[in-house]
């Protein structure tokens, strides 16, 4: 049991090391600080959603609506963001609020009507991506220069994205020992037990979905700044990728382990796959195939943990 627990924790770092070594062999000298700076932009969008997805996984749910929310916030920002600085700030806050509210709505319908999380968030995914299509039917829109500059700003030689990644990892350490972090673990491992232990299960669940929605909106804003245009299908790939990032990140509801750092590593791994394939010279058509395989394999690894856990508890293996 102990070994399996540790295996889950170290898997993201091992995979990352392997990928970096392979890339180093095929393209020596590519990996340096500048490369890190460039890549961080792609990583941060996925890491944000991956962390949200990790938290949702830890309470035994799934959030498919992140895809719709990213498309929606992306289109909203690309279509309507004003040019003045004050307007940009207000608008960004408005979008973040909208994301949080959308997440809260997910949590509310899941808790109140006892819907299965993946079905409930599937419907909200359809709703948000439909709304995104209503705003922008094709890729396009215009993003104020100031907004793009602010989110791609460099402090000395360090990009904002890189700082945010570091900040997320640090926040994760504190989040785990916070009141909400502990409540998340309690709800995930045994809902009834948590309820009788005096934890407000409803509130915890709704809060976690709210956080996930909020992070998806953040990711949508980042994507807007990086691409400086809007796309109604921007978020669709994020669903699979965020699940994969969370699972590779080593979160497991059975062993009760999760970390923001793991989720960030998971996101980095998923993003590096494309670069890896370019480096090794595999057709980029294989990207989605490989992503699917990696997702399923990593889920299998973590479900083996669950199966062993059940065996130990002498639970039937159906």
């Amino acid at each position, binding site marked *: 049991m102990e070994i399996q627990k540790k295996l889950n924790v170290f898997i993201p770092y091992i995979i990352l090391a392997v990928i970096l070594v392979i890339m180093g062999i095929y393209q020596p000298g590519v990996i340096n600080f500048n490369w890190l700076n460039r890549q961080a932009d792609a990583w941060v969008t996925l890491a944000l959603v991956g962390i949200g997805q990790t938290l949702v996984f830890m309470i035994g749910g799934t959030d498919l609506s992140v895809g719709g929310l990213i498309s929606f916030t992306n289109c909203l920002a690309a279509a309507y963001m004003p040019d003045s600085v004050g307007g940009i700030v207000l608008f960004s806050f408005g979008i973040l609020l909208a994301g949080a509210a959308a997440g809260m709505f997910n949590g509310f319908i899941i808790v109140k009507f*006892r819907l299965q999380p993946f079905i409930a968030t599937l*419907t909200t995914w359809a709703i948000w991506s*439909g709304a*995104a299509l209503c705003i922008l039917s094709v890729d396009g829109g215009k993003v104020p220069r100031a907004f793009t500059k602010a989110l791609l700003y460099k402090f000395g030689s360090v990009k904002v994205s890189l700082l945010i990644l570091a900040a997320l990892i640090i926040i994760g350490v504190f989040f785990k020992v916070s009141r909400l972090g502990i409540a998340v673990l309690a709800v995930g491992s045994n809902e009834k037990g948590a309820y009788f232990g005096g934890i407000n299960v409803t509130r915890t669940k709704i809060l976690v979905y709210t956080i996930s929605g909020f992070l998806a909106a953040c990711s949508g804003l980042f994507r807007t700044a990086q691409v400086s245009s809007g796309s109604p299908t921007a978020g669709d790939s994020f669903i699979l990728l965020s*699940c994969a990032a969370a699972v590779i990140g080593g979160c497991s509801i059975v062993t009760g382990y999760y970390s923001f750092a793991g989720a960030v590593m998971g996101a980095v791994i998923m993003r590096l796959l494309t670069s890896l394939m370019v480096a090794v010279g595999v057709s980029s058509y294989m990207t989605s*195939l490989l992503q699917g395989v990696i997702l*399923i394999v990593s889920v299998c690894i973590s479900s083996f943990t669950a199966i062993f856990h059940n065996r130990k508890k002498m639970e039937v293996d159906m």
Partner: protein
Amino acid sequence: MEKIKGAVRNNTEILGNYLIAVALVVVISLFYSGFGSLSHISVLLSDLAILGFLVLGQTFPVLTGGIDMSVPYMMNSAAVILNYGINTKGWGSGTAFVAVLAGALLAGAVSGFGIAYLKVHPMIMTYGMNSILMGALLFWTKGTAGGFTPQGLVGFAKAKIGFIPVVTIFFGAIMVVLMLVLKRSAYGKRLYAVGNCRRAAYFSGVNVRQTVMITYMISALCAAVGGLIMSGRVGQSYLGMGDSYMFITLAAVAIGGISMNGGKGHTVGSTSGALIITIVLSVLTVLKASPGVQQLLYGVVLLLALVLEANKLQLGRKKGGKL
């Protein structure tokens, strides 16, 4: 007679769905005179056959409390494999059909194996499978989506008896067969047992894993047939031809009275859902609704269907005095 009465009483909702469908056509044809004409009804019926097959497939995983999100690329691969195989690889049509059906069964078996034996969550497994199929398809065809459909299939998809398309009759026959499988065969009994309570089914000696795995194979096969009919109807295959169907099949299943928690519902019910969705889809096309509005509506409809279902369950719980 008693039996029929009982069946009607248990399925009022589904009967209601069929009545609503007829009423919708009648009411809309008052506003748009062509809507209720025989030629348009014939178009609706062949739309129903495509969506119907996908929905029939979706019914089975949902009955076990799972979900099949690989429908879009399952149908897309079926169409592309057939066309690409015949046009570019020079396969005979027999070989191509066998390849398509075998491929669908294999993909379904892999999903089912992952879900039933390796305990991967159905949503993750099938969505991953969707991604894998997409990648494999792109890699195999190098991004050229197959080309034109063989004449035989086009002829089959467009053939009509009177005003009723042959594919719709084919669909109806398969629906009846699957209904019999659900209600009369040992496999059907096992399926409902697993859907209602996996644990109880396990202790009653049902091979839970095998039962679950087979549902995904049925789903894959149905999606492939749906894809073939669609490619026959359109006359060619293209990448992304199934993308809009993921939400639609689920919405149809939910409207058709199949509980997302599993164990309740049948194919006649899900067909009623498919019928209503087909009509609504056609109305939206008549109204020139944008794809965005359409998708938004699917989401809202699916959500409403789920919430209504959940409310009924909660009322039931209150009546039964259980938690």
